[in-house]
Structure formats: structure tokens, C-alpha cells
């Protein structure tokens, strides 16, 4: 089985398992909704203030709610020793990681795409002015979140305090990516296209994605096999 085929099989398996139970995606979306509600008490939810805060607000929602999906990613394989079987399967660790990361990407992205209109309705913001570019930033930021989240999900799956350790480790690492995604999202939700001022953030986000995807693919075998 080729590398990408193996990754695709893992991805489809994860998505199928998730769509049958819907436990992670439901929890994640419900959590996103709760945070969106709580933010309305944190500041005066008028159109102008909301636009200025939108980048930070949305990405905090996405990062927090996304962690619920990522936490489950490897923990789901613990009952019946599925993880051992997966590691022993005749595919490379990198393919396993890539498949899981892609499945997580689809799930987190789905949660984000449902949360965005809800955010628009609750906070009275026309967020879709630059839809194409916003979707691109969303995809790049989400890939950063899922790559880091998936590798650390593999790293923390067997340790004590798993639920605490994952956010403790992922958020500080994600600082540059989240910062770039927040800046870009704020601009795009406000209706400005990505200009020469903001394009550095885009480059940085792409660089982060590329660098950490490469490092993760390189190190995941060590994490899984030891």
C-alpha cells in the first residue's frame, strides 16, 4: 500500500468512526457555542468592537473547541488496544499520522464552518466580505492547529493528566500560527483584502505549516514506537 493510500485509509477510518458516534464533533461544536456566548459578556458586542476583536475571538474559540477533537484523536484508539494494532500495521508511522491529521483537519474545519455563521448572527457581523481569502486563512490556521494537536495527541495519549497536558503543550507552540491567523482573520472580517502589509503574516502562517508538518512527519515514528 502506498504512503498516501495508507494515509487516506486511516483518514476514512477515523472519519467513519467519528460520524457513527459524533461524540467529538458534537462536543466541539457545543463548546464553541458556549465560548461564543461567554464572549458576549466580556465586551460590548457592537459591530465595530466585534470586528476589531473578531480575529482573536474566533481563533480562541477554534483553538479551544478544536482541542476537544484532537484530544479524542489517539485516545479513541486506546480501548481494545487498537493503537498497538495500528502501530503494528504494515504502514509507516508518518502515514498513520498524516491520516489522523487529515481526519482531524476535516472535523475541526467542519466545526469552524458551522461556528462562523453563528458568530455572524450573534454578533451582527458581515463576515463573508472576503470569503475566498478567509477560507484560505481558515484552512492554513486549522492545519497548523491539527498538525501540532495531532502529534501532541500521540505524545500525550498514554500519560497521566492527558486532557490537561495537551492544551498545556500545544497552545504555547501554536503562538506564532495563532497570532498570524488572528491578524489575518481580523483584517478579512473587517472587509480588507490581504495587502502588502498583511501578506507577511500569510507567509509566516504558511512557513509554520510547512516547518511543523515536516518535523512532525519526521519525528512521529519516534513518538509512536519509542
Amino acid at each position: 500500500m502506498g504512503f498516501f493510500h495508507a494515509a487516506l485509509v486511516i483518514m476514512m477510518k477515523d472519519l467513519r468512526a467519528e460520524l457513527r458516534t459524533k461524540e467529538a464533533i458534537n462536543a466541539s461544536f457545543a463548546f464553541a457555542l458556549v465560548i461564543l456566548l461567554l464572549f458576549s459578556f466580556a465586551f460590548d458586542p457592537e459591530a465595530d468592537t466585534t470586528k476589531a476583536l473578531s480575529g482573536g475571538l474566533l481563533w480562541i474559540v477554534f483553538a479551544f473547541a478544536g482541542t476537544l477533537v484532537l484530544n479524542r484523536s489517539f485516545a479513541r484508539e486506546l480501548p481494545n488496544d487498537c493503537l498497538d494494532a495500528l502501530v503494528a500495521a504494515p504502514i509507516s508511522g508518518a502515514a498513520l499520522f498524516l491520516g489522523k491529521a487529515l481526519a482531524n483537519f476535516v472535523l475541526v474545519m467542519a466545526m469552524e464552518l458551522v461556528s462562523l455563521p453563528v458568530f455572524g448572527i450573534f454578533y451582527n457581523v458581515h463576515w463573508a466580505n472576503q470569503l475566498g481569502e478567509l477560507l484560505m486563512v481558515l484552512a492554513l490556521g486549522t492545519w497548523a492547529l491539527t498538525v501540532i494537536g495531532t502529534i501532541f495527541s500521540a505524545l500525550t495519549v498514554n500519560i497521566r493528566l492527558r486532557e490537561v497536558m495537551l492544551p498545556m503543550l500545544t497552545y504555547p507552540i501554536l503562538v506564532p500560527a495563532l497570532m498570524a491567523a488572528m491578524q489575518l482573520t481580523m483584517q478579512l472580517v473587517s472587509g480588507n483584502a490581504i495587502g502588502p502589509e498583511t501578506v507577511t503574516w500569510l507567509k509566516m502562517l504558511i512557513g509554520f505549516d510547512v516547518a511543523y508538518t515536516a518535523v512532525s512527519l519526521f519525528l512521529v515514528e519516534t513518538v509512536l514506537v519509542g
Partner: protein
Amino acid sequence: MRDKILFVFGVVAMGILAWNVNAIARLPEETQQGVTFKIIFFHVPMWMCATMAATVALLASVGFLVTKNFKFDAAAVASTEVGLAFTTIGLVTGSIWGRQIWGIWWTWDARLTSALVCWILYAGYLMLRKAIEEPTQRATFAAVFSIFAFIDVPIVVFSIKWWRTQHPQPVFWSGGSFPPDWTHHLMWNMLAMLLLGIVMTAVRLRQEEAQREIDSLRRMAHAL
């Protein structure tokens, strides 16, 4: 032998510090910041030592992943802990300095934010170690995380640089106006703290090795 060398290092470090602090106290006051400016003799060496400790931790982590030799793991944890101590003191001295000169304890400027991110990352490293029981797994996972953290630091620094920066730019290598004899005192302090850092790392390394020996003896006792 190793004990004696460490002892000598420690004494030399203390000697340099005692002499140098005395000399620094006699230096004239800086025109704008007055006596407060002299905190630079501690603040800057702390950060240099912290950077070196982080680099050693990275090299040791890579060394462990390549060789699976636990000496590297012990070196990684020892230098991370010492580096975290230096980072903490660096943050505290910087904060005191900021309070005196800027009038605020903290500002979300490039260097301060990235320094705080480093502190949190390396504290996370130590927390991760605490959460894993099995030694091989602990060493492997900690090494992987250490590599991730080290890659993150330059990205954080560059990305936050695009924000406004309140922290002054380096005065030593980029054409600042730091008097040469002041630089000497700074370098002596740097040396003293480096020696101190080496001593602390070596002591911590010894502890780590003793700990592993105790663990293996205990395991043997259980096996019998």
C-alpha cells in the same frame, strides 16, 4: 576529581561575582537612568546563559534520540531546569527594570512576549516529564517536545518583531554606546554566571544519574 573541579568552579564564580559587584557599585551612574541602569550587568548575562542552556538542551535532546543514551536525557533535563531558573531571574530583573524606567511591570512587546512563551514552553517540558512514569518513554517524548519548543522560539521572536517593540535594541553589537570598561564588567559577570550555571547543571546531572541508579536497584530488588 569531578567534585573538586565543580567546587573550584563554584568558588571562582563566587569570587568573580563578589569582586565584580563591588566594582560595578563604584561605576558612575548612567546619565538618564541613574543607578537603575546597573541591573543590566545581571539582566543581560542571565538571558545569554538561558539561551545557552536552551541550546544545550536541544543538542542533548537530539543526542538522546540518536543514541538512546540516558546521559543525554539527564543533560537535557539538567540544562533545561537551570535554563528555566535563568529565564525566571531574567524575567524578574527585566520586570523590575521596566517598572523603574517605563513605569510598568510588564508590556506585551516582542521580546517580553517571546521570553514569556519560552518560559511557558520549558515549564511545559518539565511538566511533561513529571506526567510520564516509564523512563524510556519519558526521555523520548521530552526530547521530541524539546525539539518542537526550540524550533518555535525563533519563529515566535520573528513574528512578534512585526509588532511595535518597546524593549531597547541590543547596545553591544549593533553600534550602541556602551563604554568599553563597562563591557568588561558585563563580560566578567557573564563568565561568573556561566560558571555558576555549569556547576548547577553538573550537580543536577549527578542527581539525575543517582536517581536512575536508585531506580534500577529498586527494580532489581523487586525482581529478586
